[in-house]
């Protein structure tokens, strides 16, 4: 793995546009991924994630905008430093595991001998040793997935794009792959990770980029985003139903307490004061951090509402 200046993003896209006929798949997307950073790319189906990824990898050319990899326009040399695990797996089913991996590694500019040595390391790391002599068609979906992951990182890429990497994997192999991703991040690789599993994003990603209808609607560190969306929600463990308390718009039972939504312009102190005035015994009172999934749904719903409003 080669080093690049820490100040330079590994990949930087600026104002990307892509049209297919009359459909605008991606509009004015700008983003970057830095060395040693795992970025989650999330968005509903058909939102433009895959098209964006393809443009970052130079598989598709943008109609407008530009992409730079390692501080320079995309070049064959830069392409050889990319590892790509597409959403739908692609390996030669009639070939055995090793020839598949060697071919893809050689296309990335790796020497065959070096690839063989590194492949052995990866087989050990990913628990694939018993399967390396098998044909791809003989492997289960999950094992095929692991082989594809191994092929993706075999050449030691500096920029890795993983599109739904855990689909079809059992929990043990999910853990194996997550550990490998963490190790790659530790080695300085920039990783872009596209998935619909928000829990995986929360676990692995430093930053989240959300795309909806071809546009970036959220981009920032995960903790900041959560804090941003936490403003109107509270969690209160109390013996009195907070519904009707001052400043509470909505209250629902949530385990040992209540999840509250504050009314617009009201502060948590208003609720606390009102509950105390009602003689409530309070065990916990905290700002509720929404899950990424809740944030995702909220953003998408907001987008849909704006779209409907625009249509009217």
């Amino acid at each position, binding site marked *: 793995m080669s080093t690049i200046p820490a100040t330079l993003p590994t990949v930087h896209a600026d104002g990307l546009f892509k049209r297919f006929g009359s459909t605008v798949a991606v509009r004015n997307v700008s983003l970057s991924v830095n060395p040693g950073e795992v970025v989650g790319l999330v968005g509903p189906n058909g939102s433009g994630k895959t098209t964006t990824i393809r443009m970052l990898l130079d598989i598709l050319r943008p109609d407008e905008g530009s992409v730079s990899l390692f501080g320079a326009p995309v070049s064959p040399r830069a392409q*050889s430093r990319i590892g790509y695990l597409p959403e739908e797996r*692609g*390996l030669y*089913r009639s070939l055995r595991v090793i020839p598949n991996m060697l071919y893809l590694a050689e296309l990335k500019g790796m020497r065959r001998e070096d690839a063989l040595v590194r492949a052995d390391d990866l087989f050990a790391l990913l628990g694939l040793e018993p399967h390396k002599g098998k044909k791809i068609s003989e492997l289960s979906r999950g094992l095929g997935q692991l082989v594809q992951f191994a092929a993706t990182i075999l050449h030691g890429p500096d920029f890795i794009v993983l599109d739904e990497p855990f689909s079809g994997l059992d929990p043990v192999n999910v853990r194996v792959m997550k550990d490998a991703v963490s190790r790659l991040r530790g080695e300085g690789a920039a990783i872009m990770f596209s998935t619909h599993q928000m829990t995986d994003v929360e676990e692995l990603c430093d930053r989240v980029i959300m795309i909806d209808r071809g546009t970036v609607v959220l981009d920032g560190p995960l903790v900041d985003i959560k804090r941003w969306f936490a403003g109107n929600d509270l969690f209160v463990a109390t013996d009195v139903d907070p519904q009707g308390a001052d400043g509470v718009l909505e209250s629902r039972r949530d385990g040992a307490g209540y999840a509250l939504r504050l009314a617009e312009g009201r502060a948590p102190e208003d609720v606390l004061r009102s509950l105390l005035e009602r003689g409530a015994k309070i065990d916990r009172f905290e700002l509720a951090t929404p899950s990424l999934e809740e944030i995702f749904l909220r953003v998408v719903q907001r987008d849909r509402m704006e779209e409907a409003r625009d249509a009217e």
Partner: protein
Amino acid sequence: MQSKAWLVARHEFAVTIGRLGFRIFAAAVPVLALLALIGIGVFDAVRGGDEASPDERQPAAEAARVGYADLSVGEDGQPLFASFREQDGVAFVPYPDEERGSAALQAGEVDALYVFPRDFLETGLLVRMRMEDSNGGAGNDELRRFVLSNLVAGEVSEQQLQRVISPYTVAPVELSASGEPVEEDDFDSAEFLFSFGAGMLLLVSVLTAAGYLLQGLSEEKENRIMEVLLSSLKPEQLMFGKLLGLGAAGLLQMAVWTAALVAFLLALGRIVDLPVELSAPSVGTLGVALAYFLLGYAFLGTVQAALGVVTTNLKEANNIAVFVVLPAVSPMWFLTVLIEHPDSVLARVLSYVPFTAPLTGLIRFGAGGTGLGEVALNLGVLAAFAALAVLLTARLFRAYLLMYGQRPGVRHILRTLWSG
């Protein structure tokens, strides 16, 4: 760029020759040739030299001795078979009666005994005697000549006798529109056989290799490996690599078949008498065959690759590939014209149409209908079409390699071909 195309070529070549189907197909011709050779050899051995090889026949004929007992009586009351006892190297040995002839036959002095009965002139019936399990005796032609020569002895001149035995031979002459005799081309059967055979092999090899190209592309699109490949190389590199690797596999297949057929014919010539004299094809003929293969494959393979790109799966691609295969084999429909009139307008036109040029060109060249100048022109035109096909197909590769599950419209394809 070159090295990645080369890697793709090496991969495609290795995968293709590793396919069981390819190996069986490539081995089919040598195996069939070997089996045919064994079959012919066994058949020849069972016949025991009745149809001896050319090398063996002459000495056997010189040594052939057959006996005859002439009991017949002619119109003049004399025996009919008193003269002309040596015919084409077969010695007819007279015996005064059947008993002594039969004794000579049993003693091995003669290979067969012919008995002409007293009423032979009326009935035409004669008796042939030979030992059990023997196939000795005079051939039909020799016996006929012996009988005719004796029947008309002294009645006609030697020349008339020859005409009685072999009445005529037709010497064909064709006149041009101006009434001038048209000179016959020097028709080299061996060259024609090679060119025609090479044409057929070329076609099968080209279409096989192009079929693998189509299959590989469809598979890569269907199983999405295309996306991984395109994150490592350009569509053009992929296309060139595939054409190169599968072309090499096709060439290997053709080389195996050609070697097997040449070995078969040479071996066959040692067992049976072939209607044409075999000789190794000239370097020029080999060069022309190779050039037609390479350019024919470059064109037809590229067109097949284009079909693989714009279709959604292998089944659909195969269905559409018929529109390439049929024109490519269509010169077979005009085979008679191409052989008998290799200089005709039809033959010339087919030589310039890129789909039909490879097979037509080789058949015409073998039939002696084209000089090297015209062959060079045909090949040049084919090369130009191949280059154009590569250019246009590269545009389709760039536009449609990642289009899964949906086929672009004809208008869209035409726009892509035009504008890139």
